[in-house]
């Protein structure tokens, strides 16, 4: 293999699911809405590398993993293994890929077949790929995952193993074929804290011993520094920040990473630190559109030039605009809760109460009030236009990735250098 071919190259990978359509959608010829679980993810895994993907639940990290092992079909972009793109794989390539890329799942309690003994579970990959010397290999791998003496474990069933032991067997099964790449999906998050550290340390050592590379997926930033040199922070299907682990832990650049890092628990009750405020929950990853995906929750969302607005009030406007443009406002419910459903003024006030907490002044307040009246009158488009005219943020045009420093990519407009690139060329900077 040529030296400069990376082991695994993920190139603008995209996995969209179509939301199920009903007969009405079919009749009206509506476009099915897309769930953008993974959307434009790119990174490269070199030999003996260990890369982490971090994000909260629902951000698409497990979908990314299932797409990487080929259990989901790719809907865009590609995965290139040793120079061969997955879209060009033939049967032999798949067989090679399947023997060289192994997976460890989160849930040790269900990742072993309850009807099979440890020996059978470990032998299965060897049988599938017709590898000889099975008894010795299984024995060796059991030693490696610290289930000693192996004789004691060979004939046990998962029922008679503890959670940690099960996960060790699962790790053993992933290693028994001596793969190039291990994909680990939160391998320790369901274990007791006391077992987590030892399993994690063992996993790290074994990856080195077996000369494998790893993609480590987790929601827990605190474990990542044990395992990976590089971290990709994922939010709503996209990678928002990518840099060496130490850098991100010390000085996170993206406001979302900042919030994640500040949420790592510190076991000292007297420790005082500034926590990043983050409001709301992630949107559903449906029809997300362009720009920064964190903008409706971001404490640092950038107001347009020439507008004097309080940061918190601006974030509220952004969240409201987001819901408005996506037609997500719970108008029916708000109207039902009114004493007099016909009272337009009260209706506008109730919507305001739902989305805005602070007071705004001057032109800002006038625009918001006018927009709320439009919404109350049912003219959502006019309201959206009115708000966009005044409040459109540069964050709505943030490119997929900005190189803030060498090896440090952040999808945030704060680091976007307007002198070097113009807004229009952001499509080319997606690398």
């Amino acid at each position, binding site marked *: 293999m040529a030296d400069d071919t990376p082991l695994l190259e993920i190139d603008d990978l995209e996995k969209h699911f179509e939301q199920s359509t009903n007969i009405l959608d079919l009749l009206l010829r509506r476009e099915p809405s897309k769930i953008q679980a993974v959307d434009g993810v790119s990174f490269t895994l070199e030999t003996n590398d260990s890369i982490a993907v971090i994000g909260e639940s629902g951000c698409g990290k497990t979908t990314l993993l299932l797409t990487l092992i080929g*259990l989901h079909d790719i809907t865009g972009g590609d995965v290139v293994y040793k120079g061969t793109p997955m879209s060009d794989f033939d049967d032999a390539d798949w067989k090679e890929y399947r023997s060289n890329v192994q997976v460890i799942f989160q849930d040790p309690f*269900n990742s072993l*077949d309850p*009807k099979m003994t440890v020996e059978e579970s470990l032998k*299965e990959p060897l049988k*599938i790929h017709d590898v000889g010397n099975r008894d010795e290999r299984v024995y060796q791998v059991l030693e490696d995952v610290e289930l000693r003496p192996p004789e004691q474990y060979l004939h046990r069933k998962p029922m008679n193993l503890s959670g940690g032991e099960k996960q060790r067997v699962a790790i053993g099964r992933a290693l028994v074929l001596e793969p190039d790449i291990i994909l680990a999906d939160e391998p320790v998050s369901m274990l007791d804290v006391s077992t987590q550290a030892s399993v994690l340390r063992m996993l790290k050592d074994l990856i080195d011993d077996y000369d494998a590379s790893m993609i480590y997926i987790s929601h827990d930033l605190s474990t990542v520094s044990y395992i990976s040199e590089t971290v990709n922070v994922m939010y709503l299907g996209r990678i928002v920040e990518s840099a060496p682990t130490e850098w991100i832990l010390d000085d996170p650049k993206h406001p979302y990473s900042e919030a994640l890092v500040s949420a790592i628990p510190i076991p000292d009750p007297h420790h005082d630190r500034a926590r990043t405020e983050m409001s709301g929950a992630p949107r559903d990853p449906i029809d997300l559109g362009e720009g920064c995906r964190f903008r409706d929750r971001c404490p640092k969302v950038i107001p347009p030039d020439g507008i004097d607005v309080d940061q918190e009030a601006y974030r509220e406007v952004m969240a409201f605009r987001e819901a408005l443009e996506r037609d997500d406002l719970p108008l029916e419910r708000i109207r039902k809760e009114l004493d007099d459903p016909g009272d337009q003024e009260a209706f506008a006030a109730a919507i305001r109460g739902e989305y805005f907490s602070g007071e705004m002044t001057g032109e800002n307040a006038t625009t918001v009030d006018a927009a709320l009246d439009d919404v109350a009158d049912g003219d959502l488009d006019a309201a959206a236009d009115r708000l966009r005219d005044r409040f459109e943020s540069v964050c709505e045009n943030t490119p997929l990735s900005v190189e803030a420093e060498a090896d440090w990519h952040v999808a945030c407009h704060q680091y976007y250098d307007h002198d070097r690139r113009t807004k229009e060329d952001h499509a080319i900077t997606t690398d």
Partner: protein
Amino acid sequence: MPARDAVSLPNTEAFENIADHHIVRNFVGGLRMMLNDRTTAAYFWILVGITFLGVVGPMLAPYGIEQTQYSETGQILSAAPPSINHPLGTTFAGYDVLSRLLVGARPTVITGLLGGGLILTIGTSIGITAGYVGGRTETILMRFTDFVYGVPLIPFGIVMITFLGVGFLSSILVIGLILWRGGARVIRAQTLQIKQYPFVKVAKATGASRRRIIIKHILPNVAPMAIFFLALGVGYAIMLQASLTFLGVASPFTPSWGVMIRNAFNSGYMSQAWWWSLTPGLLIGITVLSTFMFGRGYEDLITADSESVEADTVAA
């Protein structure tokens, strides 16, 4: 393992391999757990006893089944009450009821095993295929199952038998061709569930073929449920065959217990010669009850065993 390799007798080796095979091992293991429960064990042994009767019954019969019995005075013993020579009495035609019962055990056992086996085979195949393959295959198979659900059993049996001809085996065939429907639905549901478990995903990611996943992962994990349906199927098959026989659409020449009840009914002596129809009726009842209760014992067992994959489905 070197120790085992040292045992060079090929026969023991083969035997050990069979005993070691995970399907056999799981089956034996499961059975052993079930027999720990005393009630279940009792029903199990009743079933074993009836199967035993099915094998040796005809040899134990003191008289031939169509051998007319005479009293000492030379009269035909027509519908005679139980006596020392004929502990269960005689029929209207003077046949010995006990002998007929013993001989009739065999067709009953054959009905149960063949009918139950047919139900199990069709139901499991359709259920697993639909559940695992999914897509259009699943739609077609499950809509077909729904269709079969709409077929009324006894009228269908009567119509089918007019095509296939009245006979013992054709009545079993008709039963099997209908009653797989319940098993297919439940086993599909279970397959859908097992398919989602990480161990199946890992196997797929490692490159296991569809065949391998079905045989090594899906089948062993639905097997307990399949055995449950086998037990129910055996019971239903026996009961239905008795019903079909009673209605006169199964062969009256195979001396099953159902035929005995029918003959008693047709003779018009049912109320006087109670011993004639009571014993076969009781035996059918006990057999069917035992199969159902054995199945139920299994259900309790897997619901209690939280480690088992199928616990959630049955509990739900």
